């Protein structure tokens, strides 16, 4: 006889023995069962309300953590991208102003790369006390 056969035969014998359980035990089991069912009945309304998730007027999926985390991350990412895009035109406009001033000035652009001009500028510009 293999392991499974023996296991099943023993289980059959054990099932047969269930009928021999005393009436006192059967009675106490019934009392325990009824107490458990009463408890379940008392808790039933609370469970239903929690299950529907409509208590606060919010859809159930919104209160689910598995949805909440990715949705929050997505909203944050969208806000960051929006903020960056708002900042970008300002920088572009500033750079464009500087370029326009340099090009429209009397001083040629190449003067800024001339080391001699930089020395001359330093020597001839008025100091803080002269201003």
């Amino acid at each position, binding site marked *: 006889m293999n392991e499974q056969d023996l296991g099943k035969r*023993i*289980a059959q014998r054990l099932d*047969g*023995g*269930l009928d*021999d359980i005393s009436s006192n035990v059967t009675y*106490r089991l019934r009392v325990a069962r009824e107490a458990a069912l009463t408890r*379940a*009945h008392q*808790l039933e309304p609370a469970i239903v309300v929690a299950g529907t998730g409509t208590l606060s007027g919010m859809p159930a999926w919104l209160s689910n953590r598995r949805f909440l985390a990715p949705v929050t991350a997505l909203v944050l990412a969208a806000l960051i991208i929006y903020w960056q895009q708002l900042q970008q035109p300002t920088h572009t406009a500033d750079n464009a102003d500087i370029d326009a001033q340099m090009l429209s000035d009397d001083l040629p652009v190449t003067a800024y790369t001339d080391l001699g001009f930089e020395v001359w500028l330093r020597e001839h510009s008025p100091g803080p006390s002269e201003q």
Partner: protein
Amino acid sequence: MLGDSQTRHRPLATEKELAGFLTEVERRAFKQAVFAVRDEHLALDLVQDAMLRLAEKYSSKPLEELPLLFQRILQNIIRDHYRRHKVRSLWTTLLSSLRGKDDDEDRDPLDTLEVKEGANRLGGPSEQLERSQTLGMIEQGLASLPARQREAFLLRYWEELDVSETAQVMGCSEGSVKTHCSRATHALADFLKSKGISL
């Protein structure tokens, strides 16, 4: 175990179904607890605890999930009892070593197991006696198994859980379940053979 999303799409157990489920499992649960703790009153308390916990926490689950949940609760309650009993035994041993030896120290706990007479069964008296004695021996053999082996054996063969479900209830690997089951079956076979019982 099923996830929350899967659970939502299944019909939840009605009060009547929960009652039917508890009626179906309560006697087997009681016997399992008796094999484990060897005390009928204590076993009844443990089964009552398990029923209450199931009703409090999981009565809103689908019917098909209840057997596994109930077994998990029951086995956890039995294990908790072992832990508490172990701590109590430690203190009792320490105190009794100070007081001296008890008279009934050599008593075999297996002697306290009752062998039912089976008076209300069908069949002749000799058949009833044979069946009752065999059952008594099986129960003795089960009670003498190590707790984990007995747990695995009863869950697999009496509760008819598969290896994976048994592993979930016992909180161990499927390999351990197979090992426990195999050892339990061989130990029971040897025990019954030594008593001259063939199934």
